[in-house]
């Protein structure tokens, strides 16, 4: 029976390169997928594109292509990636250039377009934003990007036209994995169960090392070998949608029932209804079994018809966040850090500096769980005060962080290591638009 082996080359924008190279050279894989777009990455990429029309794709695209192109062709591995971000065409062109420089021939590079709906944004001003329940109109003037989560359609078309490298912008993460399965096995798009199974495989693989022992280890409870050489996952998939999750033999990490279960529920809400543009997957009858060391079989899984609407992620200029930090050590460190916080609080009040929200954290004491969950009550060697404030006014953010820095000479004894930063924050809002509003187009480059 035909099987297809798909590997994950990256689970986030800045992921390690060595595991990808290992997969291409030793993984006996047919496809390698680089998933590199977090929720707001594309908004930031859009701003880069505005400054330079030839940019706006993943920062590591050139670096990755340099490292893998020759090896992929030699090992007959096709590449699918959303590293195109805000500019898949430019990403395809630069990839072509790198292929030419390496003397490679007979490569077809596709870019998938259509996710960018910024030009049509005015017609959605009356739409309700998922996160706030308010009309999109309220964000008018602040919007920098609007990208629909596409399904497999464009990638499928590129595969049918013989593309070896497919570069997309915003695509639902599991679709990057589902598309080659649909293409190879000729799965019917109306066969909801098999599509559901393919989505589940994609979901398990989309975060790379998170299913092979990354984001998992907890010494003495959950031990993992050689995380510094973590192997990235491979799904070996049969035409009925059953799969084995594994990794390259000898690589670090582990594939076990527990690593797979953790990743299965990662970023999941209702496990019977995992919505993607290609279908709705149901995890509740899934069966996982460890068949060998580092091999977990995935069977079962169901699906339902794809939603009529597509989610659109809108990036907008939201606010500024200023952060100031300073450390105190030795006996009484916590008391001095609390005094430092009090000084800043008083100073801001005296100067009538008002911000939308401000937060005082003592790192090592309450920065993660507030004062809600306390496990230790020992005196600490050192503590770091962190003050962060949100405001729409950059000058105000500056005033807040300067108050933290001024603690050097004006605050409690022994304050050291002050740092300050101000960031302009691009946030993300979501709306749902009719599927037909999106025109998917695939462009090709060849060497």
């Amino acid at each position, binding site marked *: 029976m035909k099987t297809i082996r798909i590997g994950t080359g990256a689970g986030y924008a800045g992921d390690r390169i060595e595991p990808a190279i290992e997969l291409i050279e030793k993984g006996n894989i047919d496809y390698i997928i680089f998933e590199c777009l977090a929720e707001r990455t594309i908004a930031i990429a859009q701003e880069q594109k505005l400054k330079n029309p030839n940019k706006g794709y993943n920062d590591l695209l050139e670096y990755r292509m340099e490292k893998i192109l020759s090896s992929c062709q030699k090992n007959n591995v096709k590449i699918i990636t959303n590293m195109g971000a805000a500019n898949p065409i430019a990403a395809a062109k630069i990839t072509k250039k790198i292929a030419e420089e390496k003397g490679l021939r007979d490569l077809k590079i596709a870019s998938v377009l259509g996710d960018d709906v910024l030009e049509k944004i005015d017609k959605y001003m009356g739409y309700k934003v998922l996160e706030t329940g308010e009309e999109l109109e309220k964000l008018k003037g602040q919007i920098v990007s609007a990208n629909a989560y596409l399904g497999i359609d464009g990638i499928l078309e590129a595969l049918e036209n013989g593309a070896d490298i497919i570069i997309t912008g915003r695509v639902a993460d599991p679709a990057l994995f589902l598309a080659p399965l649909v293409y190879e096995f000729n799965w019917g798009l109306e066969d909801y169960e098999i599509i559901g199974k393919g989505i589940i495989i994609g979901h398990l693989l989309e975060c790379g090392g998170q299913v092979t022992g990354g984001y998992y280890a907890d010494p003495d409870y959950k031990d993992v070998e050689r995380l510094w050489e973590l192997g990235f996952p491979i799904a070996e998939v049969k035409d009925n949608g059953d799969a084995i999750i594994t990794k390259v033999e000898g690589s670090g990490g582990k594939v076990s029932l527990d690593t797979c*279960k953790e990743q299965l529920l990662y*970023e999941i809400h209702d496990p019977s209804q995992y919505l993607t543009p290609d279908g709705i997957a149901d995890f509740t009858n899934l069966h996982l079994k460890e068949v060998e060391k580092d091999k977990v079989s995935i069977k079962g899984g169901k699906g339902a018809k794809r939603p009529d609407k597509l989610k659109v992620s809108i990036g907008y200029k939201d606010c500024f966040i200023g952060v100031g930090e300073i450390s105190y050590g030795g006996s009484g460190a916590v008391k001095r850090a609390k005094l430092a916080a009090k000084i800043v609080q008083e100073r801001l009040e005296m100067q009538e500096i008002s911000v939308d929200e401000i937060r005082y954290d003592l790192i090592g004491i309450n920065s993660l769980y507030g004062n809600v969950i306390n*496990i230790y009550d020992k005196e600490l060697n050192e503590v770091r005060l962190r003050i962060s404030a949100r405001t729409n006014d950059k000058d105000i953010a500056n005033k807040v962080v300067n108050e933290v820095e001024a603690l050097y000479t004006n605050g409690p004894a022994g304050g050291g290591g002050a740092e300050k930063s101000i960031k302009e924050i691009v946030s993300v809002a979501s709306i749902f638009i009719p599927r037909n509003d999106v025109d998917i187009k695939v462009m090709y480059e060849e060497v």
Partner: protein
Amino acid sequence: MKIKLREIAHSRTGDKGNISNISLIVYDEKDYKKIKENVTSDKVKEWFKGIVKGDVQRYELPNIGALNFVMKDALGGGVTRSLAIDKHGKSLSSALLEIEINV
């Protein structure tokens, strides 16, 4: 006897906007009943009171011995605009495992 959830289960946190989800997965599926009976959505909501501002919904997955808690208004406004050091709430999973249950 009181035990911490950490002794029988593990956990992972995920984020979508201002919503955090935490899985709770037993090492041995025989222990699923213990977490199902003891770790209710009310209990989790109470545990994270002050951190999680919205509702906590629990989903059950007996097929893999797991519960999934979906917590609304849990990430200080969401990953982009949160003032927290851990904007994604990745560390919440470790806090969940500190809950003690009677077995």
